[in-house]
């Protein structure tokens, strides 16, 4: 199984069967992040200016990506690294597999990486007989559970400590108490041996600095450093959107990222990797490979509205404040990336038909755009993609069922002709009179039943127009 692209993403279907424990587990964690983020943001007087600078840097980089990628490739190569261009997920998987096969790799340790989730790399490695182990605690947990990440930075956010303890007991055969410290100790003990014996380390990157060919990773557990320094071979799989021009830009983005993501001034570990080790005696791997992943990004970059999704620096703040995400959890979004950013990324990367529900999985409340450290106009992009789903554009075919379009045309007709609207306004109270109780409508036929199944509707009772008319008449009278 390649594991990279999902079938039809049934957000609505899933939302009817959200496991009971998910909303409370997600809310507990995300509320904490919202609080710490707010505290760190409040410390910086010019946070809004910083966001604008971050936004400008990302926008500028996307608009000049070809140039920065060329510089990046040259600098990585000069530093002794090898760059592999992968235009598709399959190309990227094959590039990694080829490197592994050529060096008889039997075991891999992985740092947390969304790019490898995107291409389903673990499945491909396992299918090739290569033992692959996630070493980020959250990733380790969901790998044991046989699941994907349900949050960008907290992959196992939907699980409570009791569930994790049960999982450890079942999969590891150890006596695991529901205590985070103890659970971490169990995972750490098991991982230590793996770090020391793995043939290859795989990572992603938070940023790639073009001017020096440097890969930047921020982590809090130290596992990323182990993965990228202990094995003799380091392979990084990174989306082409992760490039930043220079170190000056990087400082802005690191500041925005750590404060927005975990509410830290700076993460515990910030790693800068420029090529492999240069001389015997230096630490670090002998070989460094950078797989640059396109996988549809170039195509999306042609769309001036949609491409803003690639300004994203993967902080997860949009999910933490999203009332929809908090109540359905990450798996409702059906792919490796969830929350508001997933709702605007997946429909662009996948076929419109597959992800057609996702742009609608939002009330357009705007909480996400308010916290986004690089000012991605998420509601605007949601509307843009809804337009694509409804009417199609040069980047995608329409995907909504025909009756929805017919209903929209009828609505348009009724609302753009005042007499039809006013006639309806006069008729609705009569049409619903028999269902009216105490000023409310408790049940209504489809499609309004989808409203009344949740809460009653106030009774239709338009009288303002008559009142106004009578008033004008008596004044003139």
């Amino acid at each position, binding site marked *: 199984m390649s594991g990279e692209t999902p079938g039809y993403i049934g957000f609505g279907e899933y939302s009817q069967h959200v496991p009971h424990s998910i909303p409370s587990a997600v809310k507990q964690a995300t509320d904490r992040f919202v609080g710490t983020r707010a505290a760190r943001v409040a410390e910086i007087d010019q946070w809004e200016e910083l966001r604008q600078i971050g936004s400008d840097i990302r926008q500028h980089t996307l608009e000049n990506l070809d140039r920065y990628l060329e510089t990046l490739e040259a600098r990585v190569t000069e530093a002794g690294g090898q760059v592999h261009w992968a235009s598709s997920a399959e190309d990227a998987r094959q590039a990694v597999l080829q490197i592994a096969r050529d060096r008889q790799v039997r075991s891999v340790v992985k740092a947390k990486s969304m790019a490898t989730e995107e291409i389903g790399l673990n499945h491909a490695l396992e299918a090739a007989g290569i033992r692959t182990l996630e070493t980020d605690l959250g990733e380790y947990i969901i790998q044991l559970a046989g699941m994907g990440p349900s949050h960008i930075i907290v992959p196992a956010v939907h699980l409570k400590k009791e569930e994790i303890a049960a999982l450890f007991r079942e999969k590891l055969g150890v006596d695991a108490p529901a205590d985070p410290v103890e659970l971490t100790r169990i995972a750490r003990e098991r991982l230590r041996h793996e770090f020391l014996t793995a043939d290859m380390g795989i990572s992603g990157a938070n940023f790639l600095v073009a001017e020096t060919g440097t890969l930047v990773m921020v982590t809090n557990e130290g596992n990323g450093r182990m993965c990228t320094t202990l094995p003799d071979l380091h392979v990084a799989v990174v989306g082409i959107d992760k490039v930043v021009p220079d170190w000056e830009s990087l400082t802005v983005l690191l500041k925005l990222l750590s404060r927005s993501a975990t509410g830290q001034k700076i993460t515990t570990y910030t790693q800068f990797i420029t090529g492999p080790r240069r001389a015997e005696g230096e630490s670090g791997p002998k070989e460094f490979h950078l797989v640059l992943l396109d996988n549809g990004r170039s195509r999306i970059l042609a769309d001036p509205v949609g491409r803003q999704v690639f300004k994203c620096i993967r902080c997860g703040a949009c999910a933490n404040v999203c009332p929809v995400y908090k109540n359905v959890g990450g798996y409702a979004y059906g792919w490796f990336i969830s929350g508001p950013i997933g709702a605007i990324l997946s429909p662009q990367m996948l076929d419109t038909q597959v992800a057609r529900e996702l742009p609608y999985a939002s009330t357009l409340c705007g909480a996400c755009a308010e916290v986004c450290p690089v000012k991605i106009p998420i509601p605007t992009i949601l509307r843009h993609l809804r337009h694509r789903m409804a009417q199609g554009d040069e980047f995608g075919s329409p995907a909504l069922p025909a009756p929805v379009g017919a209903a*929209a045309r009828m609505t348009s007709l009724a609302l753009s002709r005042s007499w039809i609207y006013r006639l309806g306004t006069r008729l609705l109270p009569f049409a619903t009179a028999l269902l009216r109780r105490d000023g409310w409508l408790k049940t209504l036929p489809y*499609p309004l039943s*989808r409203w009344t199944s949740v809460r009653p*509707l106030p009774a239709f009772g*338009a009288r303002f127009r008559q009142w106004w008319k009578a008033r004008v008449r008596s004044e003139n009278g």
Partner: protein
Amino acid sequence: MPTVQLFITCLGDQFYTGTLQNMVRILERLGVEVTFPAEQTCCGQPLFNNGFDDQARPVARAWLHAFSQSSAPVVGPSGSCISMVKHHYPELFPPGSPEHHLASDLAARSFEFTEYLVRELGVTDLGACYPHRVTYHSACHYLRELGLREEARLLLNAIQGLEYIPLQEEDTCCGFGGAFSVTFPDVSRVMMENKVQNIIASGADTVVTCEPGCLMNIAGGLRKAGSNVRAAHIIDLLASTGETA
């Protein structure tokens, strides 16, 4: 004497006659002459927000036609509908077109009701009296698209006898979201229930908001929960004289 054109919004029209009447009374009491363009229907936001730009355009044209007969400002009881007119109408028509010009002109003189009172007229005390414990739900578009953060609170604090009680998660969406409420009713439900629980837990006997959509959702949710908390548009409190609740 300033004149305004009343934009009653389709939800106001269908469900909140009393609120609209109160709006007229308040404005007239402040010496504002109120006119009502009867050709108006809906701003077309339900179509626009769901990606049907081509279908939203004729509705926007009809709205622009109805309100461009006068040069008076437009005032409406909904932050969301006003934001549609202010921010999205100009996007619907290509720059340079007569419609774009018209949309930009009306965008500049369209105001949400509390915005008009506080920012345009500079009024916060309307002499209202409402001796109750009141909490406030901050509507999403009102707050984030129009940037109206304190206007409602200023008006509430000037109401005699009113005890203002802050609401937990005041600015978290109530789950209405227009078509969202019927597209994903199960998600809308949990969001609404979360809002209703916070309102009940606040201990207030009244919850106000500046948005007919949120009001329908929250009032219906409170009723479903069997709660006695009254949900009202802020206009209804501002028109209150204290005798009736």
